[in-house]
Each structure stands twice: as structure tokens, then as C-alpha cells.
């Protein structure tokens, strides 16, 4: 009876806390790509406007913001003119965050059918969501560019420069924070569905404590400034605008804060997620 000891896989009750297997993800990169493709193509099947919806949503939101924050409340825009670009830029980056967070926070519940039938690294799904949302961000960013170019003919020139290279870094920060918080919440929803309900409006409310409809400078002397400072997205949004328009301020301290926040969210998220993924089928 020959029995070699080198098993490929040992199934045990519970591995250690740091039993995460990120390398497994690389082996499943084809699956990630296929999920991205599925998310993107399946979303707009049987719609008339298809991916055009990606453009309609930010345009409408910008119009509302322009009306409420710009005209009715008459809040300044940090010297960024026309105001449309101020709002559109904020909404573009915010939408990416909101998409990453809300869609990844559903991971376990929405995919329980498929998770229950076959094993693959569970992180494949949230990661593919972050990437497929990136495509949407790309489309909306093109819209923003188009708007900037259009306004450049109206006497508002574009400030291209080396600092545009910072944009991917900012996007990475947003993705990291969205993913980190998303997988934490998705892990909690397996047992307590309350979080699903919570996240739906928390994301909405969060937008109001992020400088989307107003600049940070508007709050310079306000006692509420602290709340906005605590929001890890504030620095990113402000810096995003600074990079694009050369006005407002580049908040490097805020960015370091965001980076720290992202690292912790991702680390905690990975730990909780990998603990939950082993047994969530019993509670979901």
C-alpha cells in the first residue's frame, strides 16, 4: 500500500487567521476576466440605450447639483469655472467609489447560489466588480474630458500637465477604499442582513459629507469641517479636481490619510472575508 504524504489539498476546520491564499487569485485570472466581461455585457442586454446609461446618470446628477448647490444655495466652486465641470468631476470619481462599495458589499448574498455549488477563490467576484466598474469610470471620464474640451473652446482652457499622472493613483485609492469597506460589509451581511439595508442609504448620505457639491475651502471656518476631514474620500476628491483644473488645493496630508485608511480597510477586509468565506454557506 503506497501512500505518499504530499497531498495537494488538506481540508481542515479552520486555518489560521492569516490563511488568505492571495496567490490563488492569480491562477483564476481568466475567471476574473470572464466575470468582468459578463458584468459589463449582461448589464445592458435588452435595454434600448445600453451603455449610454453610463452617461445619462452623471449628466442628470450634474444638472441637479448645478441647480441646487450652484444656483439655489449659490455655493462657490473654488474658482473652478464653469461650475458644471466642478460638479461633473466630483460626481465621476464619486460614482466609481459608490459602485465599488455597493456592488462588492453584496458579494456573498448575491452569489450564494454559485458559491454554494463550486469552489473558486471568493475574492474573484469583488475584484472583478472593481474592474468592471473601472470600465464605467473610463466612460464617464471620457465624458468629463469631452466636456472640458468643449468648454476650452468657450474660453476655459485645459491645464494638461505631468500631474495628470496622479489620476491613476487617485483611482487606485478610491478602488482600494471601496473594495476594503465592501468586503467587510459583505462579510457581515452573511449573518446579519441588516447591513444590506444600511449600506443602501449610507452610501447616499456619505456623498453629502464628501466635497462633491461644495469645495473644502467653503468649510474653512466651519465647525463641521472636522467631519469632512475624517472622510477618507475628501482629500481624494479635492486632489482629483486640483490635478484636473489646477485650482483648489492639493491635499497631500489628506491623501496620506486616505492611503492609511485604505490599507487598514483592505487588511481588515481581507482577514474578515477570508474567515467568512470558509463557512458562510451555513449562515447565508
Amino acid at each position, binding site marked *: *500500500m*503506497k*501512500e*505518499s504524504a*504530499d*497531498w*495537494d*489539498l*488538506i*481540508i*481542515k*476546520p*479552520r486555518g489560521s487567521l492569516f490563511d488568505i491564499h492571495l496567490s490563488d487569485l492569480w491562477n*483564476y485570472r*481568466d*475567471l476574473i*476576466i*470572464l*466575470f468582468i*466581461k*459578463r458584468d459589463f*455585457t*449582461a448589464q445592458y*442586454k*435588452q435595454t434600448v440605450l445600453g451603455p449610454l446609461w453610463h452617461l445619462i446618470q452623471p449628466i442628470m446628477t450634474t444638472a441637479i447639483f448645478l441647480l441646487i448647490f450652484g444656483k439655489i444655495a449659490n455655493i462657490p466652486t473654488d474658482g473652478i469655472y464653469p461650475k458644471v465641470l466642478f460638479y461633473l468631476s466630483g460626481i465621476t470619481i464619486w460614482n466609481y467609489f459608490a459602485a465599488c462599495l455597493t456592488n462588492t458589499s453584496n458579494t456573498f448574498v448575491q452569489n450564494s*447560489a*454559485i*458559491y*454554494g*455549488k*463550486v*469552489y*473558486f477563490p471568493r475574492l474573484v467576484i469583488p475584484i472583478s466588480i472593481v474592474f468592471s466598474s473601472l470600465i464605467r469610470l473610463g466612460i464617464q471620464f471620457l465624458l468629463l474630458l469631452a466636456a472640458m474640451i468643449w468648454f476650452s473652446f468657450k474660453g476655459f482652457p485645459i491645464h494638461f500637465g505631468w500631474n495628470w499622472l496622479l489620476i491613476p493613483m487617485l483611482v487606485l485609492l478610491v478602488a482600494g477604499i471601496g473594495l476594503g469597506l465592501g468586503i467587510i460589509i459583505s462579510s457581515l451581511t452573511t*449573518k*446579519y442582513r441588516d447591513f444590506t439595508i444600511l449600506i443602501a442609504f449610507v452610501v447616499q448620505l456619505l456623498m453629502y459629507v464628501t466635497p462633491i457639491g461644495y469645495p473644502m475651502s467653503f468649510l474653512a471656518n466651519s465647525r463641521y469641517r472636522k467631519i469632512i476631514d475624517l472622510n477618507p474620500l475628501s482629500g481624494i476628491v479635492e486632489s482629483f479636481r486640483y490635478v484636473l483644473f489646477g485650482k483648489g488645493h492639493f491635499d497631500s496630508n489628506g491623501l496620506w490619510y486616505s492611503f492609511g485608511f485604505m490599507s487598514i480597510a483592505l487588511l481588515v477586509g481581507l482577514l474578515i472575508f477570508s474567515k467568512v468565506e*470558509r*463557512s458562510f*454557506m*451555513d*449562515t447565508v
Partner: protein
Amino acid sequence: MPPVVIKVENLSKQYRLGEVSTGSLAHDINRLWYKVRGKEDPYLKLGEENDRTKKGESDYVWALRDVSFDVRQGDILGIIGRNGAGKSTLLKILSRTTTPTSGTAKIKGRVASLLEVGTGFHPELSGRDNIFLNGAILGMSRNEIRKKFDEIVDFAGVERYIDTPVKRYSSGMYVRLAFGVAAHLEPEILIVDEVLAVGDAEFQKKCLGKMKDVSGNEGRTVLFVSHNMTAMNSLCDSTIYMRNGQIVAMGETTEIINAYLSSGSEISTRRIWQNGTMPGDEVARLLKARLIDKEGNDADVVDFYKESGMEFTYEVLKDGYNPIPNLHLYNQKGDLVLISSESIGTPLSSKGIYRAIMRIPPHFLNDGRYIAGIAASTLIPERVHFYEPEALIFDVIEDMNLRDTEYRGVIPGTVRPKFQWETRKTN
């Protein structure tokens, strides 16, 4: 002897019954408190055998308890047992969709599990896209799928529809495509659960053939759960028989299947439930049940050639509901033979004690063992007041001297009604 590729050692799995709610939060906190103090999880001491027919004392049950076995390379191992015996839990642990509570399973080689065909199929995507997606979910790389693509399409016979969204497929095409992907996986170990329950007979044959090829010619190992004893018999070299989360027997397939079929439950033709154990809710509860003959006397068996019946007594405790007595009859293989209920319009809603009788005509149930589940349910809004799954267990026997044919062998079939025949010479 080929090497051992799956080694399962003392594998156990505990489930908590009931809903996840504030109660579970309290348990979680309690558990955490024990953990903080470095003590053992208090709830692991609880738990009992998973016999779903008995009402348990504890909220925790062992779906799997101390299961150990080895599988050698190239084996086709069958797993049989009644529903709830732990078969699926075992497969789920081996395919890593859930984790065991204790024990280990060691596996050598790549595992692909087919707990369902078409996992991850997206109705809006074309057959082509779904082949790639499903293949990748099952662990194939895009290159592997590309190589097998034509073979899969050919196996499924859907060439014409390959660029049509699968939501337009007939259910047969859907299943064939899904199984096609699965059958062309090249894992060292294939875990299959009941997928043959779907598809037409010809396709089932094709699948069985494919699975045999997989293990026979290519040296792969297959773990196979099914209620289809014929498929089991023709496919598996050895079989495990499970009951209540434990292995009862393991060995040569035919022997094990026979043991399984004849093990059946103990006969019980007269039941009286004591106060406190009566099945039921606050509206209705079951008091007594018995097997009777035509005259209403106690019966031990049902005579195939005579009328018989099942009688049960229940109490309605509350007005305002309309509990309809009904009866679910299963044969020994666990197939549902029939469900029958009192007809509507019978006044059943007022408080009091009721006696229901379901009469079985002669020449109806074939000989063999039957299990009767007894229930009362209000239909609108739907609510089951009690359901006792194995209320009565009895045999139907036939007196061969009364048979009206020369043939004295076994006449298969679940029922054997006496239909009218007219055969005349016409020339």
C-alpha cells in the same frame, strides 16, 4: 494497488437549526467570551444525531459525524442514503464550498465538483460565452476551454444555437450544454451529485458512458451521489451507505444497495403520542394513528387483495382555521407514491377531536414496504399544523394463491391496479 487520492479522517460537520437571529448574536457573543478565556466552544458539546424524523432536544445537529474512508485512484465511489443522511454535506466539504467542524480530508489532484450543472450560467449570454464562463468557474483556463470548445458543442448538440442567449434554449439543450462543459473538465477527481436526475434517457446514458470513460480509460476518480440505484449499480465499483451523518456500511455496490433497500425502517402500525410529544402547533395536534382493515379493526399488514385503510385521530384546539387532514405515502426507496387529502367542503374547522380515515382499495399498492406521513394543513393562508413524516410504516403482502395469472414471480411497479383488459380475436 493504485494510490489513495482522497483520505477522509473523522470528518464532522455541525449545523445550527432554526433561524439566524438575535439568538445567534447572543450565542456568538457567548462563544467569543469562551474563546477569550481560552475555553472550548460551549456549543460543540451539544448536538445530536441528525435524525430529521425525530424532534431534537438541541438546536445543534451533526450533519456528519466521524466519517472516515479512503478512495483510490481510478475508483468510482457511490454514496447512498436517505435524504438528510449527510451525503451532500460530505460532497460540499470535499468540494470546499463549506468547511468541516472537525476532522480532515486530504486530497491529491485537482478536484472539480458538479453539484449542479450550469453553475454560473448567465441567461443573457450566448452559449459560447457561457461555455467559457462556466468552464472557468469549474476551474479550466481559457486555453483549455478553447481546445475543447468544438468537442463540447458537439457533445451537447447545440451548434446551431451557439450564439443565441441561453435563455432561449429548451431545458434539454441547456442541460446538455451544461453537462457538456462539465464532462470535458479534466480534473483528477470528479465529484458528482444527482445531476443525472435531469435530461432524457438517451442523454443520461451518454453521461454515464462519459463518466465511465473518465474513470476507466483516464484513471480519474469519481465520487457519485444519486438516488438512481440503476445508475449506481452500473457505474460504481464500491459504495458507501450513510445514515444520520454516519457511515453504516461500505463495500461492493450490489451488496450495499441491497442492504440499503432492505434496511428500511421498523414496521409500526399503531401509534399513540403522549402528551408533550404530540406533533402539532397551537391549532391542531396529532394524537393517534393506526393501520386498519375493512371493518376498522387493527391490522398488522395490508393484504393486497383486500380493502384496508389508515386511520388517525387529531385534535383541533382553535376555531377559525380549517385544518385539512392529508396523507403522504412513500415507498421504501423514498419515492413519493401519492398524496391524498380529505375533500373540501367537509366541516373541519370547529374545535374538537376528529378521526380521519383514508381507505385503500384492494388491488392497488404493490407488495412492499410503505411509509405514511400524516399531516393536517390549512390551505388559505397556507400553514402546516403538523406533519409526522414516518407516522406509519407497513408492508403490503400478497397471497400468491389468489393471483389470477400463472406467473408467480415478482411483478415490479409501485402500484398494481386491476385495470380492465379487452383482448379478442379479430379474424
